């Protein structure tokens, strides 16, 4: 079977909606159900965060979700078991995203193999250096047919964007602003100029725009420039308040895509 992430981007290059959530949040047992509800609600892609004690690239919302997940006993082995469980019912591509240290302790090669075996289609490890990936893990990931998405940010040089694009498979993760996760408000003109610049580059991968996408307006704006967008903090804030995950996830996804 072909990698679901690759299949997705072959079929769809516009309005791809990717939702990020932290494994084990709001509770340990919700990881699987949230994936099912997201598929039912019409998301295209699921990114599941591996919780870490010191998430330096994250703003308060995702930081707090990491803490709740860890306090609830979430671990990488549990997450891999949950991905297997998700795969019994969910056909959407799954990307696992996390800081490097828990992955190093698990064993990077072991993680790559087991993530694939569990049914994941891609990885994002934001603090893994490009060179270390290329020298140690790229060929294994190719052999396993597991995609790797690297981040680019508004301060990334054009030369480096092409390098990152060349090392990435599946999609490139375009961070919308020089910021940690969870920014609110509309895009600033310089962000739109940056999106415009990205859309004109000749990247081999499609790119998804993430960080600060929190409502229909920001989602559809981002979609004008990229293949789609990633929503994280806003989704997690909703989960935090929800008493009925199925209903609220449906509502959240519908509103993101269509407005009110």
């Amino acid at each position: 079977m072909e990698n679901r992430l690759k299949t997705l981007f072959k079929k769809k290059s516009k309005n791809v909606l990717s939702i990020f959530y932290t494994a084990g949040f709001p509770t340990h047992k919700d990881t699987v159900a949230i994936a099912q509800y997201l598929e039912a609600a019409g998301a295209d892609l699921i990114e599941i965060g591996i919780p870490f004690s010191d998430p330096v690239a994250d703003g308060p919302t995702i930081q707090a979700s990491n803490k709740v997940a860890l306090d609830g006993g979430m671990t990488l082995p549990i997450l891999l078991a949950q991905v297997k469980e998700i795969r019994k019912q969910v056909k959407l591509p799954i990307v696992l995203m996390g800081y490097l240290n828990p992955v190093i302790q698990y064993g990077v090669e072991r993680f790559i193999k087991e993530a694939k075996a569990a049914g994941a289609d891609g990885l994002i490890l934001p603090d893994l250096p490009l060179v270390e990936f290329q020298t140690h893990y790229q060929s294994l990931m190719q052999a396993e047919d597991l995609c790797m998405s690297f981040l680019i940010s508004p301060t990334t040089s054009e030369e480096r964007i092409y390098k990152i694009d060349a090392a990435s498979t599946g999609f490139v993760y375009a961070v919308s602003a020089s910021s940690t996760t969870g920014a609110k408000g509309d895009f600033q003109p310089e962000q739109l100029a940056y999106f415009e610049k990205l859309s004109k580059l000749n990247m081999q991968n499609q790119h998804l725009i993430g960080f600060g996408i929190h409502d229909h307006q920001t989602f559809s704006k981002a979609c004008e420039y990229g293949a789609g967008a990633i929503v994280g903090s806003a989704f997690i804030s909703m989960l935090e308040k929800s008493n009925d995950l199925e209903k609220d996830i449906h509502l959240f996804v519908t509103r993101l895509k269509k407005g009110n």
Partner: protein
Amino acid sequence: MKYAVTDEGYYGNFGGAYIPEMLYPNVEELRERYLDIIGQSSFQEEFNKLLKDFVGRPTPLFLANRLSEKYKASIYLKREDLCHTGAHKVNNTIGQILVAKALGKSKIIAETGAGQHGVATATVCALMGMDCIVYMGKHDMERQKPNVERMRILGAKVVPALSGSMTLKDATNEAMRHWINNPTDTHYIIGSVVGPHPYPDMVARFQSVISQEIKAQLIQEIGNPYPDYVIACVGGGSNAAGAFYHFINEEQVTLIGAEAAGKGVDSGESAATTVLGKPGVLHGSKTLLMQTADGQVIEPYSISAGLDYPGIGPMHAHLFETGRAQFMSITDEEAMLAGIELSRLEGIIPAIETAHALAVLDKMEFDKDDVVVINLSGRGDKDLDTYIKWGKY
């Protein structure tokens, strides 16, 4: 040069630059330019002039007679406590603020534990007319109150870090987040030999003035630049890096780092990284790190805010792994007793961080002609509250 950093930023198995892309351009710019900048004669001139006229260097190397008598060796104290602002930290902040200027940055951020690095950063920012924000764990703001007010008097903004155990690790997280959010006009002055390459090497170079002076002073004192022992406390490891620097390739000099055991290495409340840590990645480098089997960072504990950190700099992880340096764990109690002892025997109240290095003396068997240099990294003014609370004097 087997202990020197490689071009890629590694000390043996440790070091590197493990950072998200949002920090990459800044760290890369620094990596590309730091050696050129600090190698320029105009930089060296300004740096050395400030160390002399503003910091008060060279700091004395003091033969501590009564301490020597007690421990039966010639014990010298390298008086970094006499640096302006009261600790070695200012050697690094002078260097980095000049680097920041050369890079065209106008704003400075820093993290601080004991507040010494924060004060040293606020000081050089005042000197150079730069904006300064210092992140400090809320818990540390409480136990190092005088330093919080010193920073504020100097015009810095002190922002409490409210996550985790609200100490140095959490302050560092917040400083990194700030830098991600303000990448163009801001330089992050890291306060120890930690963080992504080139920070550990850059900070070690700025602190290396300590061992450079020790060598020259020992020639004057004993006619030989090499002591038998150099002892320093290790939080992140900057004062130790500076005190070891010019002795690292001289294997006849025994290097000893004193780590904070807190309430004991097995108590669950400790910061003794070489005993409790495993290789891992935090704050941009691969190093020894206190962590669970799942790779979650363990909240450290020490009575001294400056040693209350779950890792050590990659250079020290390498010195430990190769056996070039020895590391000893010192409990809160041992450190406090050593702090009182120095006060009574030599008339110097040391910082509690520094007291950990002094406590090593009691664990050693010296020959009577051994020459021992202890890096007296800072003075105890900031710690009076802790001394008073501890009470046994």
